[in-house]
Every structure is written in structure tokens, then in C-alpha cells.
């Protein structure tokens, strides 16, 4: 299929519909996932890969469990193969009369290299979660109430979660760089569909620790796995069936009912099994006190569930309202912001508190020892927020909590390093590296937490302190916003083989910047409305985001520019990267003892 796209074989309908002779090779190859059929093909491929992996790696260690899990996985592969062969999603439909040229990919999808990254990451995330799900089902079918399936699938769950998370950030980045409104998240139904399984998967990754350490919450963890998996299918359904309005509804087809059937079958099977086996899933311990790590995990789970439920409700409510009363209403950003921001702040707080508390319960002395520095850091964070001119309760709270959480993370690392230095006599750098080697899950987790802090800061700051101006300028005129001066140098028309554009040449000065930006309105032959392409000067402190909103078509005598100065937004992408790196550390297997010693010797040598 990729070959067909790269060579512009228009006798295949999919190629003809999504590709054109003028499309550059890079975008030809990645248009494999530009539309439904190609996506399903990719999905099937990845699922088959994961199944093969399980077949080779895991059947030896846990034969019974893995074999049943394999059966479940094969069932899923069969479903997707079925999809590929149905007329609804057959990617290889041949055209009797191959057209001279294809329609070309959707304009929004051939604008940015991030398109190469965002969809496959999400698909990988979605698909990999089917492995924990298969094991969970297998565990239920066999009635092996043990916790072994957790251990067997921990890395799959983590990888799936990390890919989803990084995929979501990549999608936000794409939206920021392409859609031309200066934002990265719009609570669009399909964005919601991606965030829901991520939320439940996050809850699962944490509550699973309670089960591993304390043998608690068995039924709950199974519920979370099933919920996460069902939400990934629901997400696919919402994206692909076209029942909701969305910027992502690039493709709609008859696949909707099939996916819905799949979802129903999965839910009936898994919920039925869960109910049937629930009496066997008895917890083996008692819950700690309200001020214990167990408790924080539970609170965290409750908040995550409330957040997921809100997103689900907000996404489906318009459908519900219309089905019941025929009323058409919208649920968008303001609703989600109002409900989700307090929940997110609560989660940020718990993220700082949890790791500082021991399992079972904490004494007063422990609390004081653990929270003196973080409390001071929180106060400092709040002061930084005020000093930088941030207003509003939620942003200031975010800054304070960011300080709080960062301090707890630094404190954890400092203590870990100190402990290693005392116990093993290692140097500072070696001890630091060994924290990841020996307990990657824990310290990788802290790195992930730090990534979340970066994301939170970026979101709070960019929402609270974006400066904006919109003006119609003649060539030579300037506009000032947020310390920058933007001059319209010229307007010019650009003709490329696959598109025509009108480009505004802007000279940027101020805040140490001195460069040219080229926001444009791009007209693709297959669309009626011109697509805006923003000009962005990215920086660590802020981004200057310029949009060509309108122009004088006759004489290029004026252009309406919309300019946004968005502080710290690049921290969001950095935070996504940090999350990915942290997850990588957490997923690395702890080395066997012997290799550790060797590695330590190696690491110690250059450190001296």
C-alpha cells in the first residue's frame, strides 16, 4: 500500500482519493494513515505485531494465561481483518478507470511533518492496550484471580499509555502549528476520545501499584483495564463514524455500525465475565489510613474517574440531548475548562503528596519532614506567578502546585542519591544514574511527573497571559503586541504545483527577535475555503504566532493580521518529550545483578 502511494498508483481508489501526482514523497508515504482504510490497515498490522510478540515472548513464562490471552488477541485481529475485507473499509478497491491524477490528500493533512508522528503514535497506544485487556480477560476466563497478568502486561500498559500521551501532545502540537488559531486543545470530540483512555490508563497505572504492593483493588483494576480498552474502541468509533462534529472527521464511512457492534460485543463479554467472576476477586489486605500512599492513589483514582466521566458526558451530551428532546446544543471549551481545571489541580496536588507518603499511613513527624521544603516551594511558586503578572486563581494555584511537586521530586532524587552515596559509596553522578538503573519505574515515574508539571505550567501560562492584537495593515505599517513589533513588508502570491498561496512577509523585532515570518492563506485545488498557515517564531519564553486573516485580493494593498504572543507554549512540547523519556526509564527492565556491577564500574570510570 505504501508502495502504491509512493508511486501514485491511482488505480487503487484509496490512492486516487488521498494522493495526487504533485504530492511530495514524504506526504505520499504518510498518507497511509490519512484516511480510514489506511488507518485500519495500519491498526491491523500493529495488532498482528503485538500478537506475534506475545506469542513468542510470553507463552513460555505463563503458558495458560498467555494462551488464552492469545485467543482473545486473535479474535481482535480477525475482526480487523474482516473490516479490511468488507466493502466498508477495503483499502485495495481497484478502480476500473484509473484517473489521470488523484484528488490529493486533505489539505490539513499535508501541511506539517508532525502528521507523520501523531496518528501512528495514537494508534500504537490504542492497539497496545489490547494486550493488557487480553490478559485481563484471560485471567477472568481462567478464573485465576492472581496478580500475574498485571506483571506480564505492565510494560505493555506503560508503553501504550506513554505512546498515547506523547501522541496526544504531538496532536496538540500539530493543531497548534497547522490549524492556525493559536491554540492546541479545543475539547474537540475526537481529542476527548483520545484523552479518555489516557485518563483511565493513568488511573490504572497507579492503582495497579496498590494491587502489586498491597493486594488490593483487584476488581477495580480489571474494571479500569476494560474501561480503558472500551474507551479506545469508543474513540475510534467517534473518530470514524462521523456521528459528532469534529475537525478530525476527515473520513466517514459505513464502518460505524461495525465498530459499534464490536464495542457492544466487547462490553458484553468483558463486563459479563467481570460480574461472573467478581466473587473470586477478593482483596487480600486492608486499606491504609487517609494519609497514606494507598489512600492518595484511591483519591487520585476517584478524581481521574470523575474527569473521564465529565469528558465522556460532555462529548456525548449533545447527542443525548438531541435524541431526547431534539434540542441542538453545544458543549465546548468553557464547560470542560470549568469542570476539568479544578480536577486537574487536585491531581497535581495529589501528584506531589502521594510519593511523599508511606504505604499504610504517615505520622505527624513524617509529614513535617516530607513537606517543609515543598510547602516553601509552593509559596515561592505563587510569588513567581504574581511577580510575572499572572492573574486568576487557577493559574496562580498551578504555579504554586508546580513548585510544590517539583520540590517533592527534587527531594526524592536528593534522598535517593544520598542513600546510594552512603550505602554504596558511589559518586553523585553515578548514584543519580543508578537510581534509574535500579528503580527505573519509580524514578522514571518522577521524571514523568516533572513532564506533567511542565505541561501544567505551559497550559496555565499560555491560557492566562496570551496577548493578542488584530489589525489591518498596509505594506510598511507596523503593529505592536507584547513587546514585539510586527511589520508587514509585502504580500505576494506563490504558485506551487499542488497549491496556490498568498504569503505575508513580516519582519519581527523586539524581545531580542529579528527575523522574518511568513503566515499564508493556502488554496488547495480540492477545497473551496483557503486554509490558514500560521507563521510562528518559537522561543523558550514565548511564541509569536501570526495569522494572515484576510487580504486585499485585487491589489495586495492591505492585509488583516492576527498576532498572538503566547508565553511558555513550547514548554508543552518539551513536557511531552520529558513524559516520553520518563516512561522509557520506567519501562526499562532492571538489569540482572551481574550486569549491574559491570555497568556501575563502567559508569564510575568516566565520572572520576
Amino acid at each position, binding site marked *: 500500500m505504501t508502495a502504491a502511494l509512493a508511486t501514485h498508483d491511482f488505480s487503487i481508489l484509496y490512492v486516487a482519493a488521498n494522493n495526487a501526482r504533485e504530492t511530495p514523497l514524504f506526504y505520499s508515504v504518510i498518507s497511509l494513515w490519512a484516511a480510514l482504510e489506511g488507518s485500519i490497515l495500519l491498526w491491523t498490522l500493529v495488532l498482528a505485531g503485538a500478537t506475534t510478540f506475545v506469542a513468542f515472548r510470553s507463552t513460555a513464562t505463563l503458558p495458560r494465561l498467555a494462551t488464552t490471552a492469545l485467543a482473545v488477541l486473535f479474535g481482535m485481529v480477525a475482526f480487523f481483518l474482516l473490516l479490511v475485507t468488507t466493502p466498508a473499509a477495503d483499502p485495495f478497491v481497484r478502480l476500473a478507470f484509473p484517473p489521470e491524477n488523484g484528488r490529493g490528500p486533505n489539505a490539513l493533512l499535508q501541511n506539517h511533518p508532525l502528521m507523520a508522528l501523531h496518528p501512528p503514535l495514537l494508534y500504537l497506544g490504542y492497539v497496545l492496550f489490547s494486550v493488557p485487556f487480553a490478559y485481563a480477560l484471560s485471567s477472568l476466563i481462567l478464573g485465576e484471580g492472581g496478580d500475574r497478568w498485571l506483571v506480564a502486561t505492565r510494560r505493555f500498559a506503560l508503553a501504550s499509555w506513554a505512546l498515547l500521551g506523547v501522541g496526544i501532545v504531538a496532536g496538540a502540537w500539530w493543531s497548534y502549528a497547522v490549524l492556525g488559531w493559536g491554540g492546541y486543545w479545543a475539547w474537540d470530540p475526537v481529542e476527548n476520545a483520545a484523552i479518555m483512555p489516557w485518563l483511565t490508563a493513568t488511573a490504572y497505572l497507579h492503582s495497579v501499584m496498590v494491587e502489586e504492593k498491597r493486594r488490593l483493588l483487584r476488581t477495580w483494576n480489571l474494571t479500569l483495564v476494560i474501561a480503558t480498552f472500551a474507551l479506545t474502541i469508543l474513540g475510534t468509533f467517534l473518530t470514524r463514524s462521523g456521528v459528532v462534529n469534529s475537525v478530525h472527521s476527515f473520513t466517514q464511512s459505513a464502518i460505524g455500525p461495525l465498530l459499534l457492534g464490536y464495542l457492544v460485543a466487547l462490553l458484553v463479554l468483558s463486563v459479563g465475565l467481570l460480574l461472573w467472576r467478581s466473587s473470586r476477586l477478593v482483596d487480600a489486605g486492608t486499606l491504609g489510613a*487517609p494519609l497514606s500512599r494507598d489512600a492518595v492513589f484511591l483519591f487520585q483514582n476517584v478524581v481521574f474517574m470523575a474527569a473521564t466521566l465529565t469528558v465522556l458526558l460532555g462529548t456525548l451530551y449533545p447527542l443525548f440531548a438531541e435524541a431526547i428532546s431534539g434540542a441542538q446544543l453545544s458543549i465546548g*471549551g468553557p464547560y470542560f475548562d470549568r469542570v476539568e481545571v479544578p480536577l486537574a489541580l487536585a491531581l497535581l496536588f495529589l501528584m506531589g503528596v502521594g510519593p511523599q507518603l508511606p504505604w499504610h499511613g504517615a505520622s505527624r513527624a513524617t509529614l*513535617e519532614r516530607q513537606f517543609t521544603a515543598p510547602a516553601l516551594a509552593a509559596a515561592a511558586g505563587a510569588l513567581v506567578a504574581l511577580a510575572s503578572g499572572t492573574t486568576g486563581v487557577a493559574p496562580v494555584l498551578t504555579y504554586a502546585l508546580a513548585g510544590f511537586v517539583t520540590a517533592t521530586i527534587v527531594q526524592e532524587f536528593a534522598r535517593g542519591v544520598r542513600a546510594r552515596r552512603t550505602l554504596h559509596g558511589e559518586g553523585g553522578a553515578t548514584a543519580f544514574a543508578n537510581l534509574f538503573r535500579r528503580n527505573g519505574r519509580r524514578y522514571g515515574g518522577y521524571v514523568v511527573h516533572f513532564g506533567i508539571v511542565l505541561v501544567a505550567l505551559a497550559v496555565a501560562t499560555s491560557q492566562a497571559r496570551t496577548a493578542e492584537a488584530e489589525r489591518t495593515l498596509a505594506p510598511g505599517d507596523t503593529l505592536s503586541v507584547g513587546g514585539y513589533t510586527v511589520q508587514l513588508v509585502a504580500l505576494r502570491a506563490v504558485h506551487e504545483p499542488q497549491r496556490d498561496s498568498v504569503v505575508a512577509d513580516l519582519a519581527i523585532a523586539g524581545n531580542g527577535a529579528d527575523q522574518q515570518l511568513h503566515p499564508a492563506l493556502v488554496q488547495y485545488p480540492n477545497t473551496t475555503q483557503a486554509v490558514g498557515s500560521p507563521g510562528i517564531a518559537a522561543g523558550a519564553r514565548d511564541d509569536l504566532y501570526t495569522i494572515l486573516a484576510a487580504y486585499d485580493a485585487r491589489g495586495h494593498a492591505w492585509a488583516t493580521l492576527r498576532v498572538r504572543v503566547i508565553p511558555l507554549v513550547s514548554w508543552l512540547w518539551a513536557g511531552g518529550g520529558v513524559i516520553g523519556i520518563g516512561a522509557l526509564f520506567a519501562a526499562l527492565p532492571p538489569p540482572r545483578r551481574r550486569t549491574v556491577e559491570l555497568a556501575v564500574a563502567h559508569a564510575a570510570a568516566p565520572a572520576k
Partner: protein
Amino acid sequence: MSPPGGRAKGRILIGLALAIFAVALALAARPHDETNAERIDRITSELRCPVCQGLSVKDSPSQTAREMRALVEERVNEGRSDAQIQAEFRAAYGDWVLLSPPVFAWTGLVWLVPLAALAAGLALVAGRFGGAPPAPDTAAPTAGEIAMLRDRVAREESADT
């Protein structure tokens, strides 16, 4: 681990930090008079752009959104109230044009359910703690209790779907 003097110091520091934090928060929350520009931003961020996919009138770069912003600006400068301006757009575009549904209508359910779910979840979790730290003496949570938790969540869901 820490000497008694250090502990007292720690307590003072925590107290100090909390005080600074509270003052900062109070400063951040202090009411101030809304400028016209802020009012326009607030009103337009609640309106849905008709030609976009779920973007607000404030965020959208489309021409329709720019015309709507200009109209809101004119109405604000004329001294119309928020309710009057919203009513004008609702007359033309229906409730669809509001990005968050009104709280005091049957659509208020969408606001109530998350709160209820959160409260129910917290109540259930909190109900399972009892012992003073660090010696937990609560009864073992049974599968039944967990089932109750899930059941509650499920019932919240059924309340809205």
C-alpha cells in the same frame, strides 16, 4: 530523625509558607473592574463560531468570527448587558451558539453529574478509612464494597445517559 529544635523550625517554615501562599492566592483572586476588552474576550469565548468545528468566536480566525467579535464589541460599547448580547445570538443561532449549556435548565444535569460522581466517589473512599495513622484498623474492603463503588459510578452514568 530530626532533632526537636529542627522540627519546631520545620513547623514554623510550613506555617510561613502557607501564609505566603494564602496571601498570594487572595491577591490573585481580588476582584477588579473588568475592562471592555476583557468583557469582549469573556463573552466571545462563550460563543461558538458557526463556521468552525467547535472553536469559540474568540479563538477562531475565520471571517464570520471576526464579524461576530465586531458585533459584540459594538454591543459592549453601546452598554448592553451580557444577557442581552447572548440573547441576540441565541435568537439567531439557538442554544447551539452557547459553548456551555445554561446551569439553570434541564441541561444543568451536565454540570451536576460530575460533581455528584466526585462526591460519591470521595464519600465511598473516605468511608473506608477509620483507623488513626499509622495503625489501620479498618475492616478489609470486600469485593462487595468495591462493587458498590463501581456500581455508584455506573449509576451516575446511567443518570445521564
